[in-house]
């Protein structure tokens, strides 16, 4: 067995996060994979003044914004797809409490790629000519903005294009369906930008729905898009993306997606949501109780369940994971 990097969720947040930090989420759009449980723990530990780097808004950013824990955010898409506007984020932006810098769904991964490769900038052939280039929420007086996506001349053709700033977030909490104890991770479904993010971030924590034996990783090394050698810590937490989905393991919880978004539309609703779904559990088992065991069973009946089949035999039981993790019960 390789060296275990498994630590508890509370320890991961205690050790690797701080107020005012640039925090990135590794997700797959607003309905898919995301380490939402990590955002809940950020609130439990009272983190604030976060600068959020989210390729797309998710229920995590929606919750953190609603709770007032985020003062700056950058993303390519700020809603919840067919679930509608993200009420918590929307409220924070409209009130001026949170400055949201707009990019697009390609310029965000390009900026992460730039950070990962240590490029000074990334040539932009998208976002130019639109208000994504000319308007900046971080520098509102700079108009047309010169600091956000400044013009740069292609030295070969003479064409004027844009320069995207690279991103190197201080921490990325990346949701994966499967990781081994060292952090070698397999993604099912679109990886979205988790590959680029894992290389761009200064520190990476993977938050895994299931832990597999390293023999699984050795069977499918081509599928390991996040290798353990760039992972700082591994957090085991089933249903970590709830109420969003994790292909192969569970569907999005339609009822809770709507309930949560409705709650986040008001201060009172947000306080009640935090009381009931952020502060109300003291570990994995009571978290799963909070979701509801019947709900867990129903969400697990996913049309994508077959995607997990090749890996099932290597999934470690909770007792074995506990042995690989110091102070597991302190989660």
């Amino acid at each position: 067995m390789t060296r275990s990097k498994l630590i508890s969720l509370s320890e991961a947040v205690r050790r690797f996060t701080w107020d005012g930090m640039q925090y990135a989420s590794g997700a797959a759009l607003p309905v898919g994979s995301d380490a939402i449980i990590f955002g809940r723990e950020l609130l439990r530990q009272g983190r604030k003044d976060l600068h959020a780097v989210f390729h797309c808004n998710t229920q995590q950013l929606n919750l953190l914004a609603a709770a007032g824990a985020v003062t700056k955010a950058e993303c390519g898409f700020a809603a919840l797809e067919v679930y509608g506007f993200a009420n918590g984020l929307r409220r924070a932006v409209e009130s001026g409490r949170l400055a949201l810098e707009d990019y697009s769904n390609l310029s965000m991964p390009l900026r992460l790629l730039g950070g990962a490769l240590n490029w000074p900038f990334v040539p932009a052939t998208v976002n130019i000519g639109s208000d994504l280039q000319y308007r900046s929420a971080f520098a509102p007086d700079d108009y047309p903005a010169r600091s956000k996506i400044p013009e740069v001349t292609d030295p070969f053709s003479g064409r004027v294009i844009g320069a995207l700033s690279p991103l190197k977030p201080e921490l990325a909490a990346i949701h994966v369906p499967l990781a081994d104890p060292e952090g070698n991770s397999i993604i099912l479904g679109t990886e979205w930008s988790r590959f680029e993010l894992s290389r761009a971030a200064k520190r990476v924590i993977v938050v895994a729905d299931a832990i597999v034996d390293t023999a699984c990783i050795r069977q499918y090394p081509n599928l390991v898009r996040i290798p353990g050698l760039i992972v700082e810590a591994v957090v085991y937490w089933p249903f970590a993306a709830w109420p969003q989905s994790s292909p192969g393991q569970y569907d999005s919880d339609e009822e809770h997606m709507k309930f949560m978004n409705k709650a986040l539309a008001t201060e009172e609703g947000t306080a009640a949501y935090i009381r009931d779904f952020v502060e109300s559990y003291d570990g994995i088992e009571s978290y799963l109780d909070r979701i509801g065991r019947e709900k867990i069973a129903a969400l697990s009946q996913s049309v994508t369940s077959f995607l997990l089949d090749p890996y099932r035999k290597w999934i470690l039981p909770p007792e074995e994971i506990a042995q690989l993790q110091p102070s597991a019960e302190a989660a």
Partner: protein
Amino acid sequence: MSEGGSLEYSRQEMMAIATGREIRDGELAIFGVGLSMLAGYFAKACHAPNVRVMTEGGVYGATPAGGLPWGIECNRISANATSFTSALDALGFLVASGRCDVGIVGAAQVDKFGNVNTTGIWDGEIGPRYRPPKTRLPGAGGANDIACGAKRLLIMAAHERKRFAEKVSYISSPGYLEGGAARSRFGFPGGGPSAIVTTLGILRPNAKTKEFELAAWFPFSSIEEIKANTGWDLKVSAEAHIAAAPTEIELAALRQVDETGALRKN
């Protein structure tokens, strides 16, 4: 609607079918969620069985299973994919590269040069200093990248006066910018929007000025109704005509894709 013939169909269904008709068999196509996905998969189910479909999440070769997906990465569209890659791959390697033939995007607000606003609604002009919108909208998402890179762009929007503006307050995704040759100075591989398909008709850009003009109205609408619901002085193209009502085959194909009836709700 029944004015146009014997079939009953909704305005949204007509819009989806008219959009789908713009897609040709064999094309490499990218769809967003909701309406644009229904229009795209309608084309695949009807007249373009070999259209090569991808989402901006990098989900390839999939068709929705079990209802309209909640997102482009929803498990409903991850259940029968033949490839999962990434945003950089789909929006970058296949769209920004200029390889993608056609993309479909929605618009909260669109102007006479086909510029799209999906970012926010302000009370009047934003002004020289950027300020938060009165109503924050979803943002550009992948639409900006598709508007820059796809060879043809199809824009879908409910035809209401407040949505069809002389000038959008914020350009989230570029159409023809200030019109004429304005777009060409950015060297985008994409040719710009080829049609704005609405709940009332179809607008197409004038070849020279790039101003959108009325190209077709639907069996249940009229030139007058469309002009009254457009926020600029809409010109009517010399070739303007009535669009064909949905055929029985088209309607059956659309409803097979829209099995939860999302397009029949209003």
